């Protein structure tokens, strides 16, 4: 029955149009960025940077390089927005529409209901990131050749890789982006378990993230960066570092997974004691 419940939850999630807003936005953003990269100084600036560091720009301005360049702003800006939107809907929208009351007139436990919704949310996160990563690489390959990979993130990564290694790390980084997406989704999901509107849950989750981001930029909070989500969200970029800081990546991974579980449990506890009324 658990699998049946999960399948039904996925039907509900992927059956509604607003679930696809994120997918659509990513496609638009990726194509807009590709055009900008191709026809503005963005590309020449990158070539100059490579040349300045002793690399042949023509060997590394490739579809893999451009795909990662496109991913960075999308992971920071769009991914939180659309995962929070879906996460905020998971419980609060059902409560608002009245379908939650229909479900809870049946002998299903609240915990199981939430567990199924949370798992469906994780599957959505994975699907969104897979599409994001896949289409970024696909669209980039229409405009740029398949060659070596160059990854640059100020203060974190500066590395050049062969196409094979680059692709391997690119796929690996998608797994870590999925973890990031699931954290934001779980945060919005947690808020949506309380008695509030879906939009409020989404806004609260994004606000939490924004406050984390602002705090990280304030020198005073540098010593507390281990407690701030954006610090751990960067593990997907660290995967491209040479040598790979596995300990740091593992630490962030564990913190994020623990955060995810904690958000779920807080949400489940709040939902358990809630009165469900029309």
């Amino acid at each position, binding site marked *: *029955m658990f699998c*049946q*419940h999960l399948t*039904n939850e996925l*039907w*509900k999630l992927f*059956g*509604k*149009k607003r679930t696809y807003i994120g997918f659509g936005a990513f496609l638009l953003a990726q194509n807009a960025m590709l055009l900008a990269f191709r026809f503005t100084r963005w590309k020449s600036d990158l070539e100059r940077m490579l040349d300045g560091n002793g690399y042949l720009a023509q060997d590394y301005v490739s579809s893999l390089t451009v795909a990662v360049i496109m991913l960075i702003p999308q992971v920071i800006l769009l991914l939180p927005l659309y995962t929070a939107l879906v996460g905020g809907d998971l419980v609060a929208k059902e409560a608002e*529409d*009245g*379908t939650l*009351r*229909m*479900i*809870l*007139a*049946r*002998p*299903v*436990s609240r915990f199981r*209901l939430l567990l199924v919704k949370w798992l469906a949310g994780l599957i959505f996160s994975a699907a969104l990131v897979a599409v994001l990563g896949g289409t970024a690489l696909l669209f980039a390959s229409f405009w740029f050749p398949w060659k070596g990979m160059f990854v640059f993130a100020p203060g974190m990564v500066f590395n050049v890789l062969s196409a094979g290694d680059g692709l391997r790390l690119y796929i690996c980084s998608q797994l870590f982006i999925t973890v990031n997406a699931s954290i934001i989704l779980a945060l919005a999901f947690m808020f949506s378990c309380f008695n509030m509107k879906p939009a409020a849950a989404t806004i609260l989750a994004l606000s939490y993230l924004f406050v984390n981001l602002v705090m990280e930029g304030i020198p005073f909070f540098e010593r507390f960066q281990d407690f701030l989500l954006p610090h751990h969200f960067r593990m997907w970029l660290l995967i491209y570092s040479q040598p790979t800081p596995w300990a740091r990546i593992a630490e962030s991974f564990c913190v994020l997974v623990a955060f995810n579980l904690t958000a779920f449990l807080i949400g489940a506890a709040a939902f358990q*004691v809630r*009165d*469900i*009324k*029309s």
Partner: protein
Amino acid sequence: MIELENVSKQFGAQLAVDRLSVQVPAGEIYGLLGRNGAGKSTAIGMMLGQVWPTSGNLRVCGHCVLSERHLALRKVGAIFESPAFYDYLSGYRNLQILSAYTARTDARRIREVVDWVGLGSRAHSKVRTYSHGMRARLALAQALLPNPELLILDEPSDGLDPEGIHEMRLTILRLHRELGLTILLSSHLLNEVEQLCTRICVLNQGAKIFEGNLAETRRNGKWVRLKTTDWDQATRQLAEQGLISTHRERRLVALADGVDIPRIVRALVASGMEVHEITPEEESLETFYLNLMDRGGAASTHPTSSPSPSS
């Protein structure tokens, strides 16, 4: 089938349900009446384990709702006012999703119920294309899928047109007659309750102010409807003989203590008056309810200190 024992629910400072005790035996159509905010939906929410009671015990189908909710609700179907569905999915898919929360339901059973409620070929259309009446049928179908023994209906006719209300009423009777279901019906439509229910409970400000058979609500004390050739003379003579205590509306007389209808008839005939009609006045549920609310409204201003005038 449903047992509530001193159940209370407090939302902050507001007492939504106040020490409510109700027993719904199997096979009954039990009506729950009361104003908006009287606590009917909260009471139903508590029966379904959606609202946590502040105090008291609740048992449904012989199981405690708080500790054995999964057993208590296994044979329960529910319909709420303005039933909500996943509008972007088909009616059939909605039934699959909702019924799976009770038990695995095979396609044959879903088709059977879909046909029973008369949804037929439209079951595979998206719910957003359904009329209000079709949504009501879908709501009924989802409630019937778990093969319920108990059906809880919270304002099931809400928003339906007169034909829809009539059809819903017939369906409820059919469910009771053909499937032998116990039905708890919360409704504002007094004529609906009057035509369907065998027993009612009236709530006011969270407290029970009446519980009894529908027949009890129709009894109207000593009032008798009387038609004679001369109303003024008849009432004057009956009053002089001490047979009536009062009269009103030029059609109703209140019998004095120990006086019955044959005695009135004998007195009038002996006075040479013709009696065209004399019959005990039956009160409509509406009149009973409104009188009760007038009394109950005043009484439940201090509900904890006033005894409830239940039967």
